[in-house]
């Protein structure tokens, strides 16, 4: 009986985990359709006491192609804006987590390169305050 209940617990944890994984992914990608347009790609430099906004570029389908170079402590990080999407193209950091985040196009999407101090956020037009804080 006790063994059965322990196994049930493991199955429950696995199911909750898969649910969170799929639900979280769905919530992250579902916002893409909801947010029509008028979004901005904001590129921040992470400082010890706060972030400084370097560039704020409107994202639109007919927007051009742009590469922003950010100089950090390790070297230069290239952020690529392509129409309505933005990503970290390359970065001198060891883990390449920022590159692994891939293309960002939905509001509140982010990609952060902590070693090189670069933060890319897709923001709503109403300002840099994000929806979670409000």
């Amino acid at each position, binding site marked *: 009986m006790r063994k059965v209940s322990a196994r049930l617990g*493991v199955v429950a944890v*696995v199911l909750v985990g898969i649910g*969170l994984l799929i639900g979280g992914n769905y919530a992250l990608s579902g916002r893409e359709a909801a947010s029509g347009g008028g979004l901005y790609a904001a590129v921040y430099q*992470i400082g010890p006491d706060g972030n400084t906004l370097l560039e704020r570029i409107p994202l639109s389908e007919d927007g051009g192609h742009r590469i922003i170079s950010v100089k950090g402590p390790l070297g230069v990080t290239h952020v690529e804006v392509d129409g309505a999407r933005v990503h970290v193209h390359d970065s001198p950091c060891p*883990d390449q987590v920022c590159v692994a985040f891939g293309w960002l196009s939905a509001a509140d999407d982010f990609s952060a390169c902590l070693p090189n101090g670069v933060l890319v956020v897709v923001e709503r037009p109403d300002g840099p305050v994000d929806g979670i804080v409000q």
Partner: protein
Amino acid sequence: MKQITFTNGWRRKMAIVRRMTLTEQLAVAMLVAVATGLHMIERLLPPLPFPGAKLGLANLATLIALRYLGFWPGVGVSVVRSVLGGLMGGSLMGPGFWMGFAGATSSAVVMGLGAKTRWFRQSNVGLSVAGAVTHSTAQVMVAVYLTHHAGLWIYLPVLLGLSMLTGVFIGIVCDKVAAILPYAVWFGRKANA
């Protein structure tokens, strides 16, 4: 071999850290080595499809230490492992190191407290899941603190779900390892004799 002790009587009983036998000290040292090795091996494995997520192999050694040696040896293995891993990986004192350090330490403390209760006696899976969930939460917390951007919290549900799955996996592996541990000890004695 007789262990030389510098404290005895009530001072020994009141000590927060129990004086370990030589065997236990050796076991801690070996577990630190195993944990650092797993930490480095994990860097060579192909990354999971979710950025910033890892399997948490090094947690195996922490779990074994917590289970068989006690609270402080387990936490110590975890702390020393992340410092050594940072030293070898070249990320010591960097932001990635602090995220891993905070996650490893807090998850070791949570798993150690859990191991003191009677709910996790039966297997290591529950402990491992608790540790994995704590690890990812602490990691996101440190990332939010470092980037000054609260929007990073939206990534937490995905990480929590993934850490539950990896936690179950690591817990099952830990149970299997714990099952063959007595044979390994017996084999080692046989080889030394």
